């Protein structure tokens, strides 16, 4: 039987089968689910993020690690809910209206989930109204807006305005990202945070919420 400390390596190397097996065994053995997440799973995904940013890992390594993490999380999550353990944050994420691109958005969602955040993924071509409704309905404290095109990027500003108009601006931190988006642009439209990569989005979300 695998040692619980091997869960870290199983996620880091993207060994889905092993990550699920170790988690299952540990939980059946009475292991505290929160400790599993905090001590092994999130640190493993943090290391994946570090290696990704250092060009030691690339998208394939990031995706198989996220898959292993998700497999383990599926076993842990019901127990965390039962214990009323709150996620690191509740994130509404989507690609803005008129834009059908989702690759970058999906990578950010995967890494945020691996970082202990709950994800409400609205998909692509999402209107300001849908973002506002999801923020209110789900009680989100972070919203992530993605755009690939310079022509759809201005939609981010409209969404921030809609959130303000709906009286939800104080409830959420707004993060923006996507190929043409810059820190300067994020500041200009009144976003709280920006990241140019999926791993950095986790660090930024934690910074904005003061967690981790």
């Amino acid at each position, binding site marked *: 039987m695998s040692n619980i400390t091997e869960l870290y390596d199983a996620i880091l190397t993207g060994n889905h089968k092993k990550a699920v097996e170790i988690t299952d065994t540990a939980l059946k053995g009475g292991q505290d689910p929160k400790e599993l997440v905090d001590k092994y799973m999130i640190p493993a995904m943090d290391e994946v993020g570090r290696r990704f940013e250092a060009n030691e890992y*690339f998208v394939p390594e990031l995706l198989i690690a996220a898959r292993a993490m998700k497999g383990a999380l599926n076993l842990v999550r019901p127990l965390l809910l039962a214990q009323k353990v709150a996620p690191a944050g509740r994130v509404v994420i989507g690609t803005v209206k008129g834009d059908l691109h989702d690759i970058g958005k999906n990578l950010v969602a995967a890494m945020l989930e691996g970082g202990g955040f709950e994800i409400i993924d609205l998909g692509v071509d999402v209107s300001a109204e849908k973002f506002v409704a999801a923020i209110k309905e789900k009680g989100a404290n972070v919203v992530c807006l993605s755009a690939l095109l310079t022509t759809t990027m201005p939609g981010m500003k409209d969404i921030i305005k809609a959130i303000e108009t709906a009286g939800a601006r104080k409830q959420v931190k707004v993060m923006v990202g996507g190929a043409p988006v810059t820190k300067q642009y994020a500041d200009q439209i009144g976003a709280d945070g920006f990241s140019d990569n999926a791993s950095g989005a986790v660090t930024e979300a934690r910074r904005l919420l003061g967690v981790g």
Partner: protein
Amino acid sequence: MDYEEIQAEIQRGVDAKQLAGKGVTNGGPTLRDRWRRTMFYQHVDRIPNFEFGYWAETLNVWHAQGLPPEVTDEASAYAYFGIENWKTAPVNLMGLMPGFDHLVIHEDADYVTYRNSEGTTERINKQGDKSIPQHLDFHLKDRATWEEYRWRLKPGPERLPANWAELAPAYNRRDYPLAVGMGSMIGVPRNWIGFHNIAMMVYDDPELLEEIVETLCTLVCDTLGRILPDVEFDFATGWEDICFNSGPIVGVEFMRRVVTPRYQRITNLLRKHGCQVAWTDTDGNILPIVDGFLAGGVNCMFPVEVHAGSDPLELRRRWPGILMQGGVCKMRIAEGKAAIRAEMERLRPLVKEGGFLPGFDHRVPSNITLADYRYYLKLKRDLFGAGGVPQYDESKVG
């Protein structure tokens, strides 16, 4: 000095800057000569004025800003703006023969969902930005579905144009740069398999992925082998598009082990027949895989997308002698005249050095105004000595 001699000089430690302007060819000032001199770091009176084209929406937006209504596509726009161009031999290098039947699956007021000729199910927003569709499903999922592709990738003379016997001698009398395709080892399979799925396949089924790459390489070499003895091409154009802002969708190791050796086979064949420049189109941050391309003989990068991390000055600093096309930051061009001039001045030393064909680092988006685009082209001719004559009075642009 040709490219191989330039590379040898650089290997001996000579800085690429010192090679600029060395050697003069005997050719006249045709567009082909200018292209060759530019790419081989030789003195040239005017550099070719090449561009990447426009997003579908851009010309429509510009019509409201004064673009003549008869300018409706890339060809008419190039003629209007005075942009030069190369030609590419119409060879079906590695396309699916036959392609999958186009099939509309669903259509409503907002969206059209269809299966395209590559078997991929896509959705287009009829109201929004139509330049890039959303991919909903990819048909190539495993070994069984690969068989539906493999039989469509058979080599044969039908991949050449029917009039090749007449085309080839005409090409050999040309005065413009002529390109031939050199295929795609990862980008096209990515279109068939999907971004997420191909990244997973690197680990889940590397043997199948390598078999796909090998099949494509063999097909490309077979097709090139049928035409290269007939025409000396100036350059070869590949297409990958496998990078985004954070780097490539396959890792450096996969690139080194699987992709680089296939490109070596292709570029060795090209060079055996006098084609010394091999160019690939990959957006995004290419820095992690430049070594892999160069080792595979792919010596020219396009479109060198600055905002994504592929700065042409940085590429030349890290890989002296590397050839590039593109590299003008579209984000800066969107910021108005002062920013446009600053971007052009920034790149001016690289143009002077040679081996660099400046142009937009991707298609021109519609947030760039017609006035700013004209100003960019004016500076390109004034500061860089780019060729081409516009159909309007450029002296009044400013």
